[in-house]
């Protein structure tokens, strides 16, 4: 009944989402990029008798065939940012390829071969801009040398364009494909010896380039996680512990096993408490021939749970406790001057609390993964994973095999936002395939997804700010409390880490003489993870809303205030004001990627100009402003809100200004900001996860609401600052400033400040 059509159908080279590397390209192991820069290896030869296809593969990211096909390996996961296009675009530009003849192939998970593949933290372009340029430039260098030798002209007079080497003086041209025989055995030059393009000659970098998979997506042919099908594959749907830490005491599966198509019920042992970032939850998996039988079978299970210590957990109560704790003295995480001095000299003190809920990622594709555990102790996986190497390691640990025994094929991801970094669902597939002795696809339902996520943490904050007799902001005391991501792996972690605080809290950039930042204890009663921009979500909300309130109290314009308090153009640092702590700067050395107030001021000035900040607005409209640097990218945002005669609120317009250094794919930068504004609108207005008796109350999109087309901002303008600075990412940075900009605009419209998210639910 089930059609056993393997995923591996014949595919055209263009516009298909290929999951595998063609087997004839057996690239040599080249060492990790993550440990010491870009390594180039010897080339792999695919030679044969005359007329056979020859291949030139100067590094793991690129190969060129004698039929002119340029194949570029996408080694980072595509979850909607466009990275599967943007990194190959860099290689192709330096190479001088004909973009229409480029085929993109997704790498399997293998960090020894490809370098870092953890697609997270908005760092793909930041980390791989240079290596991708060198990968393309090396091949170009070799092709140019071969053509020059053939023509007897100096290589310096030749260049590449549209898949050909060109000699300007003689107008000689030769296709790359016709040079393969010459270059395929040539020695590979040292990376230092190849010249990179002058940026003014870029043909693809800095341009709008359509994503490679557009056509495949628009015709339904793109391959996402759950689309992979294997011969004899079973489907598993799992009933997981309704409360984190719950254990199965007993269960009845007669009704389940009576459903036609259901073959087996398998228990998955959960880690308990702490639940771990890379482990499945305890649960019972129903294995069936088809998804419908598995879903019905899971519903029919009768399970007796020992719910464990989290069964009395209520998130609203915890939020109240957390808010109360912020009134007390906390653990000092940053200090400048003496906040007490500011309080003593204050003409005015403003003290506010801010609350934000747990959020679920609710990627439109719920988690799904396919595993084929083979009798020889190896396992092959297909998964929409952001972090294939971690998934390999987690699977290996769960099966007690070496990670080299785990082959990890990466499909397209139907959204990631941090959820699909965690390998728990991949581990489930591997365990179940072993138990079922056949390939298994584990399919999460939407209820599974919303009930068992690694949530963005519940948060409470208190900011006390002082204004002195001269009307200056003199003191800033920020208390923040939220269950830490670390608590998911270690229950003793009750304070946010320096890393989490460096996301919009301890990196408070303003020139205020007295600063005191404190954290308070809180425990995790669920799995905490990271969601698009992580703790910047709640920190930017609180800080920018307070700055807006301070501007009002001081009788100054909030944009002018931000410029004033950023001070003169300079690089600022934070670590020396963090007792025993460190500002992590998103994993980059602060001197390589400084926090520059001038760059921030330029985006603020730009957004104010573009949005017509300060101009009179019609009745019923208002603007809100905020700025937030995150993931090393400078962003300022102005949101316009409108109330119509029926009192209906809408968002007619959004302006963003962004400085992300060199802009690689301008269209994908704009699309990330457009999407970021819409994503953040849901965070501000409609979405919240709450717990009662340890269980998540939201089961589907009727109760965990995502904005829909009518609620979307009507226009989103993205102004990209031209820059030759090192490129930084854009996946997450659109979210943080939008949240308070919308809240500040709402205040202007309604006269009511927003202190708790979401406000529209």
């Amino acid at each position, binding site marked *: 009944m089930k059609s056993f059509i393997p995923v591996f159908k014949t595919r055209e080279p263009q516009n298909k989402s290929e999951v595998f590397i063609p087997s004839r390209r057996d690239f040599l192991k080249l060492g990790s990029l993550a440990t010491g820069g870009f390594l180039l290896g010897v080339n792999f030869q695919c030679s044969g008798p005359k007329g056979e296809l020859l291949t030139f593969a100067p590094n793991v990211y690129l190969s060129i065939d004698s039929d002119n096909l340029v194949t570029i390996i996408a080694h980072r996961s595509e979850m909607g940012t466009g990275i599967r296009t943007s990194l190959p675009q860099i290689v192709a530009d330096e190479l001088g390829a004909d973009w229409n003849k480029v085929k993109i192939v997704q790498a399997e998970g293998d960090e020894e071969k490809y370098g870092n593949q953890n697609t997270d933290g908005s760092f793909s372009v930041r980390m791989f801009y240079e290596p991708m340029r060198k990968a393309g430039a090396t091949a170009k260098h070799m092709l140019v040398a071969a053509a020059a030798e053939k023509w007897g002209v100096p290589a310096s007079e030749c260049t590449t364009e549209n898949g050909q080497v060109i000699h300007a003086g003689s107008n000689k041209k030769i296709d790359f494909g016709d040079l393969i025989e010459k270059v395929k055995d040539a020695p590979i030059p040292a990376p230092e010896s190849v010249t990179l393009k002058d940026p003014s000659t870029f043909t693809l970098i800095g341009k709008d380039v359509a994503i490679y998979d557009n056509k495949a997506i628009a*015709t339904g042919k793109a391959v996402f996680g759950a689309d992979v099908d294997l011969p004899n594959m079973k489907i598993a749907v799992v009933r997981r512990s309704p409360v984190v830490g719950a254990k199965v005491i007993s269960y009845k599966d007669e009704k389940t096993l009576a459903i036609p198509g259901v073959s087996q019920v398998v228990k998955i042992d959960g880690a308990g408490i702490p639940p771990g970032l890379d482990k499945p939850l305890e649960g019972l998996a129903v294995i069936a021939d088809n998804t419908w039988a598995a879903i019905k079978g899971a519903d029919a299970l009768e399970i007796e749970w020992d719910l464990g210590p989290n069964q009395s957990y209520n998130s609203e109560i915890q939020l109240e406790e957390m808010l109360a704790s912020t009134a007390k003295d906390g653990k000092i995480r940053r200090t400048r001057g003496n906040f007490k001095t500011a309080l003593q000299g204050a003409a005015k003190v403003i003290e506010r609390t801010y609350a934000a809920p747990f959020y679920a990622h609710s990627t439109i594709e719920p988690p799904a993964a396919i595993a084929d555990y083979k009798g020889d102790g190896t396992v092959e996986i297909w998964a929409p994973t952001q972090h294939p190497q971690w998934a390999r390691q987690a699977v290996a640990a769960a099966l007690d095999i070496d990670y080299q025994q785990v082959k990890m094929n990466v499909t397209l991801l*139907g959204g990631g936002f941090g959820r699909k970094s965690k390998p728990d669902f991949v581990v489930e597939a591997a365990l179940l395939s072993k138990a079922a002795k056949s390939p298994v696809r584990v399919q999460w339902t939407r209820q599974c997804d919303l009930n068992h996520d690694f949530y963005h943490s519940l948060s409470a904050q208190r900011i006390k700010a002082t204004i002195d007799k001269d009307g200056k902001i003199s003191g800033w005391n920020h208390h923040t409390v939220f269950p830490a991501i670390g608590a998911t792996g270690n229950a003793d972690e009750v304070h946010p880490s320096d890393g989490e605080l460096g996301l919009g809290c301890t990196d408070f950039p303003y020139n205020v003489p007295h600063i005191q930042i404190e954290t308070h204890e809180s425990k995790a009663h669920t799995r905490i993870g990271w969601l698009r921009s992580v703790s910047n979500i709640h920190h930017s909300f609180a800080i920018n809303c307070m700055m807006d309130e301070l501007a009002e109290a001081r009788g100054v314009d909030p944009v002018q205030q931000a410029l004033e308090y950023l001070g003169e153009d300079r690089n600022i640092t934070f670590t020396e004001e963090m007792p025993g702590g460190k500002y992590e700067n998103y994993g980059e050395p602060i001197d390589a990627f400084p926090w520059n107030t001038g760059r921030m001021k330029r985006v603020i000035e730009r957004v104010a100009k573009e949005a017509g900040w300060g101009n009179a607005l019609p009745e019923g409209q208002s603007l809100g402003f905020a700025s937030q640097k995150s993931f090393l990218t400078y962003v300022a945002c102005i949101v316009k809100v409108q109330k119509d005669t029926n009192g209906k609120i809408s968002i007619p317009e959004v302006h963003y200004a962004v400085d992300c250094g060199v802009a690689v794919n301008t*269209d994908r930068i704009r699309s990330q900001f457009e999407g970021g504004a819409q*994503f953040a609108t849901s965070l501000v207005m409609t979405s919240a996860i709450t717990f009662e008796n340890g269980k998540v109350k939201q089961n589907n999109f009727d109760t965990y609401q995502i904005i829909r087309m009518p609620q979307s901002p009507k226009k989103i303008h993205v102004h990209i600052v031209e820059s030759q600075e090192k490129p930084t990412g854009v996946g997450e940075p659109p979210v943080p400033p939008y949240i308070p900009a919308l809240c500040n605009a709402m205040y202007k419209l309604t006269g009511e400040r927003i202190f708790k998210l979401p406000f529209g639910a």
Partner: protein
Amino acid sequence: MAIFNLNINGKSMQVDVDPATPVLWVLRDHLDLVGTKYGCGVAACGACTIHLDGNAVRSCVMPVSSVGGSKITTIEGLSENGDHPVQKAWLEHDVPQCGYCQAGQIMSASALLSNNPNPSEEDIDNAMNGNICRCGTYLRIKAAVKTAAQNL
């Protein structure tokens, strides 16, 4: 289990399944038509949108037993070569981000335009309200629907 003869993308197809099986799973599990996606199972996200006699329906809540002789069209059958005006407009506006919701979006949009070739803003909002895009491509979807309307 029961045998159903279905007309899908102009071809007749036969399946032997539980009559309560939603069309979504019949397509995906039994007919290898995986362009239609699962997102919620309760008609709340639109990822599974198909056409039933030209109207957009959510296949995740439609039991196969209720289809009868109606004609089903999925994303795979919307056009021969991916050149339906809506698909072309999608490429022109570079709509997709992750792409997972887009088959459902395209099916909703194409059903709208076949019933209402000149939709107003409000018509578009109403017709597309059932389709969630978590990546946030709503503005490009709307622009593409307008372009497609001009090129019908």
